[in-house]
């Protein structure tokens, strides 16, 4: 099978859906003539033109609201935020409007829109590095999707476009595997594996709420999202040589969350590490830990370990960023800690 980068996979999903459904449109900053800040929408303006691919002004709240209005009236917009950090400019429209309209209207409103946002730390300092998932996991009424591989990205994106609810797809910049058109070379990270880069050409969907066991194991469960999936897999590969067997689970969607797959694994391994890139305090790792503690307490042989970003705005200096964002060593040390007694 052919291999695609994650950016290619997302693009292919969008293009296939736009070809088969004329109500699907793409909007965002520089997504058209410039092909998107991370090249994800490369060639789409050329193929679909300005009525389907809208180059918007830098007006996040405005175009987010417009996406909602379009979704309420028959379109299925895909709204790209250039960086996930900029979603905060549109917080009201996302949290108060998109996520609540269905309930407030007693089920009249369908809000079939997809928000795509690149996130994650890549040396761009505090306002272009954040991992935003906790805010939106905390927002009932929308789904939160985090694809760690190209295969997952395509199937989840197609599901997202076809669903009649608001879906946030968070894409990690380091996982794109594509050069930025601004001249930047492809971002890389030596921990990123080629796992899941075989991508079928035909359109396919991946249901929400189905975690994927990226690696089966018996001693420790590592639950990880986005790039942490790759770091966890790299750690698991190393620890195997020491005779430690790690199971790596990628929830793929935080909302809905596949609690059963996670709890089943916990009941088997009795030891858990949660690895996410968002900050620890009030974060996704804390939420997962809480679920496990409440629902599988009797099966735990050690306290759950949270590996998450330090509680700080992301600093610029490379050494500092590296310290703040979880690395392989952090995951490895956490595994050792849960295995200690």
């Amino acid at each position, binding site marked *: 099978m052919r291999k695609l980068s994650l950016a290619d996979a997302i693009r292919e999903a969008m293009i296939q859906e736009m070809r088969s459904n004329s109500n699907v449109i793409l909007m965002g900053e520089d997504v058209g003539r410039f092909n998107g800040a991370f090249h994800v929408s490369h060639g789409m303006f050329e193929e679909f033109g300005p009525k389907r691919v809208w180059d918007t002004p830098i007006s996040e709240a405005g175009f987010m609201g417009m996406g909602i*209005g379009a979704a309420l009236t028959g379109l299925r917009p895909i709204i790209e935020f250039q960086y996930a950090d900029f979603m905060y400019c549109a917080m009201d429209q996302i949290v108060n409007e998109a996520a609540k309209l269905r309930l407030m209207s007693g089920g009249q409103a369908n809000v079939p829109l997809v928000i795509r946002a690149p996130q994650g730390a890549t040396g761009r300092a505090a306002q272009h590095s954040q991992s935003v998932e906790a805010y939106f996991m905390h927002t009932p*009424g929308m789904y939160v999707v985090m694809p760690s591989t190209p295969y997952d990205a395509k199937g989840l994106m197609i599901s997202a476009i076809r*669903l009649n609810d608001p879906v946030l797809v968070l894409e990690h910049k380091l996982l794109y595997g594509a050069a930025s058109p601004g001249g930047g070379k492809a971002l890389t990270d030596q921990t990123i594996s080629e796992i899941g880069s075989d991508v079928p050409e035909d359109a396919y969907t991946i249901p929400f709420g189905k975690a994927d066991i990226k690696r089966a194991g018996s001693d420790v469960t590592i639950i990880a999202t986005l790039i942490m999936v790759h770091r966890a897999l790299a750690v698991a590969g190393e620890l195997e040589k020491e005779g430690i067997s790690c199971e790596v689970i990628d929830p793929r969607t935080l909302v809905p969350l596949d609690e059963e797959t996670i709890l089943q694994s916990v009941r088997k391994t009795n030891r858990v590490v949660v690895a996410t890139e968002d900050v620890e305090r009030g974060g996704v790792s804390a939420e997962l830990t809480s679920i496990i503690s409440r629902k599988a307490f009797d099966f735990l042989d050690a306290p759950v370990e949270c590996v998450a970003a330090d509680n700080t705005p992301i600093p610029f200096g490379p050494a500092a960023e590296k310290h703040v964002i979880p690395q392989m060593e952090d995951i490895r040390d956490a595994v050792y800690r849960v295995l200690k007694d």
Partner: protein
Amino acid sequence: MTIRKPEDVIEPFNFEGFDSALLKTLYLRMVRAREFEEKLYYLFLTIKMPGTMHQATGQEAVAVGVASVLNADDYVTSTHRGHAHCIAKDVSLNSMMAEMFAKRNGACKGMGGSMHLCDFSKGMLGAFGIVGAGIPIATGAALSSIVRGTRQVAVSFFGDGAINEGVFHESLNMASLWKLPVIYVVENNQYALSMPNELESAVTDLSSRGCSYNVPGRTVDGNNVLAVYNAARQAVEDARNGKGPFLLECVTYRVRGHARFEQPNYRPKEEEELWKQYDPILRFKQAATTAGILSESDLKAIDQQVEKEIEDSIAFAQSGEDVGALDYKQFIYSGQMEGGVE
């Protein structure tokens, strides 16, 4: 500029182009909105009603004048003060009243209440409790109409306070760039809660505030339903024909307090009394009967019809089941894929 006096804004009634059927419809909708809210006020006083509400008493001509030029499938977004917009867009009194009582047969199945009333089958996309939030949403509905090629027009109603929200500016810019068929109707009732317009808008001539975005505007007597209708009709016709957005300022006055029982202590009683004399329904009645276009008995028949409708709506609401504790669970997500099940 200080608070505007009626004499600064009033325009004479010009019946040219209005036949008696249309005039009756305008009157009917204004009276419906008025009596619906007056009934709510009474129900709140007698503590029969949960929640809160914001009355548009004295502002009915704006909602009715604008919405009456729209087609049934045109879109409207509204505000926390939204009953009149719904009524003007022909949302049923029964479903609205039942929603106020938090009944399962309410417009929003008892999930929204006064501040989120909507009826998608009538193009009424919702009242928004967040000030200004409907502005980009209406703009997006207009974009949708362009993409789908339907020639539908969208109207966003919002207040003089909302015009200072960032989304107003973002939306006007995009609507103008892309010539979207959207009419921005600023209902200038001269107060945003306690704040008179002059204390919160650096430029109080609100219809001029589209000029940064090349959006034309106009200020009309918002208590003259015919003036509002004519201005809106022109704007809507232009928008439908691809000429782009318009900013219509309707100057009016919020006769009641901001919400429920609030007693405005931030404005002089004389000002309130003066504006009450320029009540839009009163003025319409006087003008139409003086001109001999509608008779007292025409109007009376409508009044009686509305009275009955309101009583019926209460009976309808009372016949509904109360919202159950778990009803909300079915409305959080659709969980459905387009055209089928997930």
